[in-house]
C-alpha cells in the first residue's frame, strides 16, 4: 500500500516551528557573540582609562614625594639650625611619612626623625630594614625599596616603602631615607575598580607588590597574584587566560600600576545571565509561535477538512446533499463557494436528467397504451362476426359498442388521467368482451364506492390486471370463476383491487409479473402499470399482489385522490 502523505497541519506546524527555532538560535548566537565582544571591549576601554587615571595620580604622588625630598635635602645639606622644628612640622603635615633617617657615607645611621616614636638604638643597630649599608651602590640614584616593616622602634612596626637618595654635603651626611606608609596608598588605590570585580594594585619592577587592596589577604595566603607572570608583561592590555591585565609603568619610576579584570567572572556571568534571559524569552517565543502556528494551521486545515467532509457527503448522496458554505480564510471560502456552485449545477443536471428520463418513460408507456393487442382485436372481431352469422344481432351490437367504448376510453382525447368512472367503464367493456370470448368460464362484478367516481386515475390501469386474472387465474379453471373489481376509499388514497378465485400464483410467478416489462403479448403489462403509478404519484403508490395458489389472487392498486389532471399530467 502507498504511504499516506503527511497531513497539511503537521507540515505547516513543523515548517513554522523549525523556521522559528533556527531563527531564534541564530539570533541568540549572534546576539550573545556581539554582547560578549562588546563587553570585552567595554572592559578593555574602561580598564585602560581607570589604570591611566590611577597612573597619573600615582605619578603626582611620587613627584610630590620628590619635592619633599628636595626640600629635606636642602634642609639637611645646608645644616639649618632649626632642623628639629622643621621635621616636627614636616612630619605633622605628612602623616604618611613614618620616619626620616640620615646616614653617613659608610651607611651608619646618623639621625632619625619620627612624629610619635623614639628610635631604639640597639634595635636599629641590630636590624634596619629601611637602609641596608651593603647595598649602598644601589642607592646612587633615587631608590625605592620593596615594602617592609620599620624596625627602628619598639612596639611599632608599620609597613612602609623607603625612598633613598644621596645628598651632597660638607658635614658627612651622605644618604637620606624616607619611610612612607604603604597603607596610606589605600585611599588612592582601594576604590579603583574595573568592572564588577576588577581592581588595581601597585607593583615594582622586581615583582614585589607595593600596595594591593587585598594585601593582607595575600600575606595570609588566602589570595595569590600571579606575580611571576605579571612582572614579565610589558605595558599595555594583555588578555591572559581568564584575566585581562592592564599594565602601566609610572614615569621615572620602578613602580607599575597593574589593573586586573576577571574576564571569565565578569563577562561569562553577564553572558550567562543574558543567555538565560534570552533562553527564557526564546522559549516564550517558541511556545507562542507553537500556539500561533497551531492556530494558523487549524484556521487553514479545519475549513479544508469541513470541505472534504462536505465533498464526501456529496459523493455518497448527491440528491439530498444540502450545501452549507464553509467558513475560513478567503481562499478557502472561494473554493467553498465554487464547490457550492458546482454542487448546485450537478444537482440541477441530475434533476434534469431524471425528468428527461421520466418524460421518456411516460412517452414510452403512452406508446404502449396506444398499442392494441392484435390477438385481442382479432378474437373480438371473430366473435362479432360469429354473432352476426348466428343472427345474434343484439349481442353483436353490444359487443361492437363495448369494443368502441374500449377504444374510445383508451384514446380519451390524449388525456393520461381519466375519471375513475371511465376507467371502470373501460374495465367493464373489456370484461364484457372477454366474457363473450371465455363464455361461461367466469362471472364478474363491480363493488365501487360512488363517491370515488369523479377522482382521476391513470387510464388502462385495471385492464392489464384483469387480463392477467383471466389468462393466469380463470383460464384453465374447471369450474366457473369470478372476478371482482373493487374501488374503496383508504384515507386520502383510493384503493382499487382486482380479485379472482382462480389458480393463484406462486411467489416466483408474482416476481416475474412484477418485473417483466412486457407480457408476451403486446400491450401494457402489470409492471408498466406499477411503474407508471410510481412515476406519477411517488414510490408509496403502486401495485401489491396477494396470491394463494388454488385459492385466488388479489391485486391492490393504491393511488392518491387526484382531482386535477394538470398537477400530474405534465410532470
Amino acid at each position, binding site marked *: 500500500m502507498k504511504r499516506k502523505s503527511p497531513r497539511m497541519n503537521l507540515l505547516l506546524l513543523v515548517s513554522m516551528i523549525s523556521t522559528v527555532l533556527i531563527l531564534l538560535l541564530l539570533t541568540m548566537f549572534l546576539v550573545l557573540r556581539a554582547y560578549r565582544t562588546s563587553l570585552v571591549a567595554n572592559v578593555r576601554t574602561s580598564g585602560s582609562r581607570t589604570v591611566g587615571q590611577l597612573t597619573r595620580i600615582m605619578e603626582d604622588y611620587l613627584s610630590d614625594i620628590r619635592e619633599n625630598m628636595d626640600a629635606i635635602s636642602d634642609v639637611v645639606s645646608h645644616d639649618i639650625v632649626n632642623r628639629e622644628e622643621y621635621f616636627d612640622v614636616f612630619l605633622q603635615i605628612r602623616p604618611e611619612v613614618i620616619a626620616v633617617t640620615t646616614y653617613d657615607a659608610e651607611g651608619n645611621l646618623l639621625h632619625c626623625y619620627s612624629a610619635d616614636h623614639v628610635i631604639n638604638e640597639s*634595635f636599629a643597630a*641590630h*636590624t634596619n*630594614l629601611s637602609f641596608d649599608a651593603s647595598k649602598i651602590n644601589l642607592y646612587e640614584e633615587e631608590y625605592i625599596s620593596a615594602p*617592609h*616593616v620599620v*624596625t627602628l622602634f*619598639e*612596639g*611599632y*612596626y608599620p*609597613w612602609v616603602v623607603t625612598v633613598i637618595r644621596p645628598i651632597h654635603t660638607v658635614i658627612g651626611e651622605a644618604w637620606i631615607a624616607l619611610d612612607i606608609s*604603604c*597603607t596610606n596608598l589605600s585611599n588612592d588605590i582601594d576604590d579603583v575598580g574595573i568592572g564588577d*570585580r576588577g581592581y588595581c594594585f601597585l607593583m615594582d619592577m622586581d615583582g614585589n607588590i607595593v600596595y594591593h587592596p*587585598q*594585601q*593582607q*589577604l595575600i*600575606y*595570609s*595566603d*588566602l589570595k595569590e597574584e600571579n606575580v611571576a607572570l605579571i612582572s614579565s608583561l610589558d605595558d599595555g592590555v594583555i588578555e591572559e587566560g581568564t584575566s585581562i591585565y592592564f599594565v602601566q609603568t609610572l614615569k621615572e619610576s620602578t613602580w607599575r600600576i597593574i589593573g586586573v579584570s576577571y574576564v571569565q567572572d565578569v563577562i561569562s556571568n553577564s553572558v550567562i*545571565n543574558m543567555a*538565560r*534571559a534570552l533562553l*527564557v*524569552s526564546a*522559549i*516564550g*517565543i517558541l*511556545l*507562542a509561535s507553537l*500556539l*500561533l502556528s497551531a*492556530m494558523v494551521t487549524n*484556521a487553514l486545515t479545519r475549513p479544508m477538512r469541513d470541505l472534504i467532509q462536505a465533498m464526501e457527503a456529496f459523493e455518497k448522496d448527491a440528491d439530498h446533499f444540502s450545501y452549507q458554505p464553509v467558513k*475560513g*480564510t478567503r481562499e478557502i471560502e472561494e473554493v467553498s463557494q465554487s464547490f457550492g456552485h458546482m454542487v448546485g449545477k450537478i444537482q440541477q443536471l441530475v434533476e434534469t436528467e431524471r425528468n428527461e428520463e421520466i418524460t421518456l418513460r411516460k412517452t414510452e408507456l403512452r406508446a404502449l397504451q396506444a398499442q392494441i393487442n392484435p390477438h385481442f382485436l382479432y378474437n373480438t372481431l371473430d366473435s362479432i362476426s360469429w354473432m352476426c352469422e348466428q343472427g345474434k344481432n343484439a349481442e353483436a351490437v353490444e359487443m361492437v359498442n363495448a369494443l368502441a367504448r374500449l377504444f374510445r376510453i383508451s384514446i380519451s382525447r390524449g388525456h393520461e388521467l381519466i375519471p375513475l368512472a371511465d376507467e371502470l367503464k373501460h374495465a367493464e367493456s373489456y370484461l364484457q368482451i372477454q366474457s363473450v370470448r371465455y363464455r361461461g368460464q367466469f362471472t364478474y362484478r363491480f363493488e365501487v364506492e360512488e363517491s370515488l367516481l369523479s377522482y382521476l386515475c391513470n387510464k388502462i390501469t385495471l385492464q392489464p390486471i384483469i387480463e392477467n386474472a383471466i389468462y393466469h387465474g380463470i383460464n384453465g379453471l374447471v369450474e366457473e370463476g369470478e372476478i371482482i373489481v373493487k374501488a374503496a376509499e383508504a384515507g386520502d388514497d383510493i384503493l382499487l383491487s382486482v380479485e379472482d378465485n382462480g389458480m393463484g400464483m406462486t411467489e416466483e410467478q408474482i416476481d416475474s409479473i412484477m418485473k417483466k416489462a412486457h407480457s408476451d403479448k403486446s400491450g401494457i403489462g402489470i409492471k408498466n402499470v406499477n411503474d407508471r403509478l410510481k412515476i406519477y404519484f411517488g414510490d408509496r403508490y403502486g401495485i401489491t399482489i396477494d396470491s394463494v395458489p388454488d385459492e385466488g389472487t388479489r391485486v391492490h392498486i393504491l393511488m392518491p385522490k387526484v382531482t386535477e389532471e394538470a398537477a400530474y399530467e405534465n410532470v
Partner: protein
Amino acid sequence: MKMSKPFRICLVLLLCLTLTGCQAARVSPSRQYNVWFIAKSTSTGFWRSAFSGANVAKSEYNLQLTICGPDTEEDYEAQNAFIYDAIADHADAIVFSSISYTENAAAIDAAADAGIKVVVIDSNVNSKKVSARIGTDNVAAGKKAASVAIDAGYDSLVIGIVNFDLTSRNGQEREEGFRTAIKESGIGAEIYTINVVTDIEVAKEETKQLLLAHPEINVIVGLNEPLAVGAAEAVAELGLGDSVTMIGMDTNVRCIDLMRTGNVSALIAQNPYAMGYMGVEACYELLEGASYDPDVWIDTPTILVLEETMFSPESQRALFSFE
C-alpha cells in the same frame, strides 16, 4: 478567525510568563545576604585582624555585614543578646566565636532553628546545628611549638608549660600536641604545667615562681597570647633570655619586641585575618547552596617565626598586620 477561549487564555498567560521570566532573570543577582559577625571581643589585635578579613570577604561577595562583640572576653550573655538581635534582624548567617562552649549553645540552636546558617570560628560551641567550623589546628600548633624545643639542641629537656584554664579545649589540645611531639622525638623530657587565668601579670608572676622553683627548666611555653607575653616577660625579668628557650603563641607586639631582645625564641602565628575572611566566605557559600562538614575543622594555617629569621619577608608577613 474565531479563536477558542482556552486558546486565547493560554496565549495571554504565555506572554505574561515570558515577560516576568525576562524580568526575573534581570533582577535576581541583586539580593544581598545579611551576615552577622559576633566575636569574643572588639578591641584586641587578634579580633581586629579577623574583622578586616571579614570586611574584605564582605566586599568581595557583596554582603551586608554587621560586626559586634562584647566588651570583655568573658561576657557570654552579651554574645547571646547579639545572637537574638541577629535573629530579629532576619540574618541569613552568623559567624560566631564562642566565649562559652556551653552557655552560648542554646542561643546558637535558636538561631539555627530560625534558619540561620552558623559558622563557628576559632572557638567552638556545644551545638549540633553549626554548619561549618574554621580555626587553628591546635594540636598541630602544639606540635610546631614542640619542634622548636626539640631543635634547640638540648640533651634533655625540662619544660615549663604555661597553659590556661583546664576547661579550655583550645589550650588542652595545644598542650596535648606539644606533649605528643616531645614524646615522639625520643628526647628525655620533664614537663611542668601550670594553669593560670589569661592575664599577663598573673602569668608573669606564676612563670617566675615556676622558673625559680625549677631553675633546671630550659624551655618555657606560653599557650595563648597573654600567657606568652607574661611568660616572656618573666624570662626577660629573670635575665634568662640566653639560657631558656621561650616559645609563645600569637604575635603580640610585646612578644615581638622581646624576641628582638633575645628573650623569645619562637612564636606561633595564628591567622585571625584568614579566620574572619573564611568565616564570612563560608557563610556566602553555605547560602549559595554549598555544604561543609561541620565536624571537620577547616584549618587556618599557623606559621612558625624564629628569632633568627624574624625579618625574613615571610616572617614579616606573618608577624605584622598590613593595616
